[in-house]
């Protein structure tokens, strides 16, 4: 199989790498870029733990071919906020008990950020609908939904600003 040379932007940094035609975006992110915040949970698009943004849209990196992100912009959880500069969504997850074991958290943060970028003032039902593909076994989801609503409230009232803006 011929390898493909792909050029893309990863968390703001340009990348140029050779990938196998069957190589998954999740493997590129986790193994070649050592960005292990993107989690393997099921490998078949059922759990949402591997969600990343591709050109601003949330996609499940375990079912996206790396070759498909040629020319596009990829943001992983590591690109949403960092130690010195947490995104309001990340802070809200800590304030509201949205984090327990933390294994689903990166996918949840990625989905939450995408939701608030699309819809800055979601209702609780809109949050639940948008996040329905992301599984969490610890929290019963209450802390996660509280976190998204709380971040939305802070951002829309100007009390907090997304890192990427």
């Amino acid at each position: 199989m011929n390898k493909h040379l792909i050029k893309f932007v990863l968390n703001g940094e340009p990348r140029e790498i050779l990938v196998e035609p069957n190589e998954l975006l999740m493997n590129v992110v986790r193994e070649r870029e050592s960005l292990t915040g993107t989690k393997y949970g099921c490998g078949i698009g059922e759990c949402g733990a591997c969600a990343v943004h591709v050109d601003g849209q949330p996609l499940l990196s375990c079912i996206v071919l790396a070759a498909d992100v040629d020319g596009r912009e990829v943001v992983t959880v590591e690109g949403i906020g960092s130690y010195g500069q947490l995104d309001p969504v990340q802070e809200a997850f800590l304030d509201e008990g949205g984090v327990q074991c933390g294994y689903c958290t990166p996918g949840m943060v990625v989905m939450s950020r995408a939701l608030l970028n699309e819809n800055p003032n979601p209702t609780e039902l809109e949050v639940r609908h948008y996040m329905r593909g992301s599984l969490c076994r610890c929290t019963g989801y209450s802390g996660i939904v509280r976190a998204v609503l709380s971040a939305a409230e802070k951002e829309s009232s100007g009390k907090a600003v997304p890192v990427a803006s």
Partner: protein
Amino acid sequence: MTQQKLHTIGNGAWRKDGIAKVTGTQVYAPDVAVPHQWFGRVLRSPFAHAEIVSVDTSAAEAMGAVCLTFDDVPKVRYNERIVSTPPHLYRDRYVLADKARHVGEPIAAVAAPTEALAEQALRAIDVQYKPLKASLSAEAAMSPEADALYEKVILGTGEVAIENNVAVRRHVEVGDVDQGFAESDLILERSYTTVPQYHAQMEPKSVLCEPARDGSITVWASAQSIHNVRILLGEIYGIPLNKINVRRTLVGGTFGSSIQVNSVVPVCVGLALKSGHPVKIASTREEDMHSHLRYPSQLTLKMGVKRDGTVVAGEMDATIEIGAHNIQAFPFLGVLAGFFASLYKMPHMRYNGKAVYTNRTPSCAMQGFGAPQVHFAVESLMDELAVELGIDPLEMKLKNYVGLGGTFWGHGPTVKSIILSDGVPELLERGAEHIGWADRPRPEEQTGRHRRGIGLARGFHTSGVGQPKAQGAEMIDYSGAIVKINEDGSVDLAQSLMDHGGGTLEAIAKIVAEELGVPLDKVGISPVDTKTTVYDVTTHATRGVYAGGAAAHKAAKTAKAKLLALAGRMLEVMPDALVIEPDEELGQGVIFCPGMPDHKVTVGEVARHSHVNSWGTIAAVESVRQVTAPPAYVTQFIEVEVDTYTGAVRTLRAALGADCGTVVNPILAAGQMEGGLSKGAGYALIEDIGWDPETGQLDSKGFWIDGKTPSVSEAPLLGDVTIDFADTYEPTGPFGAKGIGEASMNPVAAAYTNALYGALGVRFYDLPVTPEKILAALRENEATTGAPVEARRETTMVTS
């Protein structure tokens, strides 16, 4: 009811591992990588029961892979879970199977420099099987025609013969049950079944083993006890423990799935030792489902009561399926009896339990262990008895429950404690108020398509497995901790205890900060391994804060005594006259003598002074076993709405109550209750890992959604759930704390089935209560009672 002023315990601080978790930098076992690592894959049996005739690995080896078969592994029979003491430990397995006993059983394994090559090599292994008759239910396994899974297994130092595939039996009797039933005014007997539930922890079980030239190994594994991983690997491979180091990585949820050393761990070590390379095995989700599931049960429960609702006698017969390996059937049968005896005062009680091998995925502990099964049966039958007697179920529970001063069998018949803290009356009262229990809808008042019901169930979980007997206990139960005050006054907490995400280590850091009188941010949780920590049995049995926290608390007290002795020397004050309090402005603990304002020094100053004058490090190591196991009580009121057209059940409201003694972190404690509601709702209504009755293959084929894990869309809305914490103080716990985790899901299923009764007037005895079962019950109700189901008439009108 706190007995002293607390500065850290009780606040909702950000968890210390929180920023790493929300930014994606937290490392879990599947994320660990070392240079030049190879990739391991496991060949699993496609048959539920088969002799292994031959395994030919030559083609795989020709591809450059290193292969491991039964011939390569030590002929050591072991039990993955080394929590039971040796006389009570049943051992029936090898690193790789001598015979396939369930679909997905590890038969052989490969390691190769790339994942792709490992997968290709795995497919090149040729295994010849001779299929045997598979027993896919307890009934089939016990029939005379069944093929035996085992002739003999090891128990303690001897062998026991296995007859009719029955692994273990237990019998417990108190009083005279026959007399008790003779004295009863009303006796009901019902049979309840529960199905296996998949833990569905987000992190698939993973392991990496790095061998060194001196014969030592370093291991990272999904685990609930790093020390048990080390001890078991030492036993299997004959490696001295000081040459095995197991490093702690945080774990992405377990819910009991890693109490045992996961089967991939010794396989990975075998591959690493044979190949001489670091090897990593990351299970796929499908493999993970073949690894372990909750114990399915059939419980026949009979209870006799007086006309006034007083419980007189109870009898329970339990048949549980343990799958292909006996991991902890003996303690499981014990806790069924113990939890049964501890829910309600029962002067006369009889219990018979048997655990049966079947050719299915091995059963292991899952949140609540045997408690959700027992709670489902007992809390359902108590509701039914109350309704029959015309008594309010809440009143009947209050009248009979085992509370303050009673005896709690925390973990089976050999773990008994006198109850010293009890928030049940308070929680029932507050929950009833929130949900509107007095005005709950009654089944006879319901008409139309959508019907509502409110159900109540209560119960508990144990806090640990501690007991006073100095020898002869069934289970190992102790924890250790090292508390070290650093040269600048900051503190390191080095404890091998695992935090599965509930915040156990966060809580323990608070206990240490509280005792030492320093701000919470001064206490760091050390990254640890087995070489530099002392033993912790495992985070299970809701023991983390109560028992693990007690060890850290004792170490903090010892370190504090040393600190005050040194401070006294500096201040020329007797140490007993000194106290420590945190000073938020200084960001330090301040040591002072009340009444002598100029005799004052910070913890940091003492630590520095001690350091530069070579007085030594202020540190302590302690190892603690709790001698009681108090109940962590919960009460749960749940309101449902049933769509009688579709059988769908919606959770409208829930009023949850927890008695965990002192609440260490209210946000994280509430998180336990919210999570328990979700997993309990799944158990009650949807979750079922089924098998093909012919082949023993998983119905879900490894697809997660087909196993039906609850999603965010099924949970009740935020404003519709209340959580109350009882105002109690457990005198034997660190700062009055006891457990909470597993208790949060134990009564949930019964609260749902009782609510369904309230909505439909129908009792459900088999979990999960799927929409299909609800529709079938409504049809049957109509056929047998002639009571028209309005819904079906409306359906007919709509469709005609």
